């Protein structure tokens, strides 16, 4: 009997830690006083434990940078969770919903730190007047393939310069050439990520429609680049 009681209390503890149901999480976070404090503290611990997985391969959990990031992310995530509690629709585990917010917070902060000092690509003309398309140094395609590729590249160039606004070109080059995260391009261009996605979507649609109007179909011309080299 004592063993059973002990088992029960262990189970209750677990439940009160991480194994709250969605309803329990919501009720506790909406409660006042100790209940809420306990839920917040459990949630905070959960976020901190999950961050090494969220950032695996991106940031060493033993680095000083990780520590400062983790504190900030946990704090910001808790604030966001409380702020948006009413938007949780119960279509996942509550903890998955919280992890989603924490992941966005963590990667957003990491991106900001990594890209803070990187400017958008230069819009000015280069002086070396390298008008002809460049092949990569380590590639030696046959003259026929090279001619075909050059043709495609020049046509893409022309369509980009004729079809896109300066803003669209800048966004395209930042994302494609610089491989800059959308969120960072957005921030540097004074807008937000969602608006930047829409701008990029519109950019892609314009290029695609124009290319198709000229009889260029991306899947077909991609084959020109897929041909084995040398």
């Amino acid at each position, binding site marked *: 009997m004592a063993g059973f009681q002990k088992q029960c209390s262990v189970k209750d503890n677990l439940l009160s830690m991480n194994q709250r149901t969605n309803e329990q999480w919501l009720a506790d976070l909406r409660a006042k006083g100790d209940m809420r404090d306990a839920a917040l503290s459990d949630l905070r611990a959960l976020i901190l434990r999950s961050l090494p997985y969220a950032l695996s391969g991106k940031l060493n959990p033993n680095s000083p940078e990780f520590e400062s990031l983790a504190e900030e992310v946990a704090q910001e995530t808790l604030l966001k969770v409380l702020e948006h509690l009413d938007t949780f629709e119960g279509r996942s585990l509550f903890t998955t919903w919280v992890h989603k917010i924490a992941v966005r917070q963590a990667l957003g902060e990491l991106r900001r730190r990594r890209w803070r000092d990187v400017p958008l690509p230069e*819009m000015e003309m280069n002086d070396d007047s390298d008008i002809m398309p460049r092949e990569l140094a380590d590639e030696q395609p046959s003259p026929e393939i090279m001619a075909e590729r050059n043709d495609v590249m020049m046509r893409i160039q022309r369509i980009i310069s004729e079809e896109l606004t300066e803003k669209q070109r800048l966004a395209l080059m930042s994302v*494609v050439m610089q491989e800059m995260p959308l969120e960072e391009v957005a921030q540097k261009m004074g807008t937000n990520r969602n608006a930047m996605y829409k701008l990029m979507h519109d950019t892609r649609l314009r290029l695609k429609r124009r290319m198709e109007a000229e009889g260029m179909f991306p899947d077909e011309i991609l084959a020109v680049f897929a041909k084995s080299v040398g």
Partner: protein
Amino acid sequence: MNLFRKIKQLFSWQQPPTRSAGMAMQAANPKMAQKILGMLEKTQEEELTCDEVFALLDQFAEMTARGENVSELMPLVELHLEICGDCREEYESLMNVIQHPA
């Protein structure tokens, strides 16, 4: 190559340099062209935005983790994740977290 010569005749490539020509020139290497074409190949008339995908991401991740056929059930989320590096990165991190319960 005939087509190449024809097109060179059709369009004047040696236009005076402009700011926009400077930008466009950057597309003139095979890797860039390939990347742009790859993006265009995936482009659809209707796509979800980052906010719309974020709203569904927890559900999408759990469905994936359960082995459900998300390509069929949430094709627009899947498409967005193929196109958007920011959202894909967040999705992959979220999968890492929910598959390693802390």
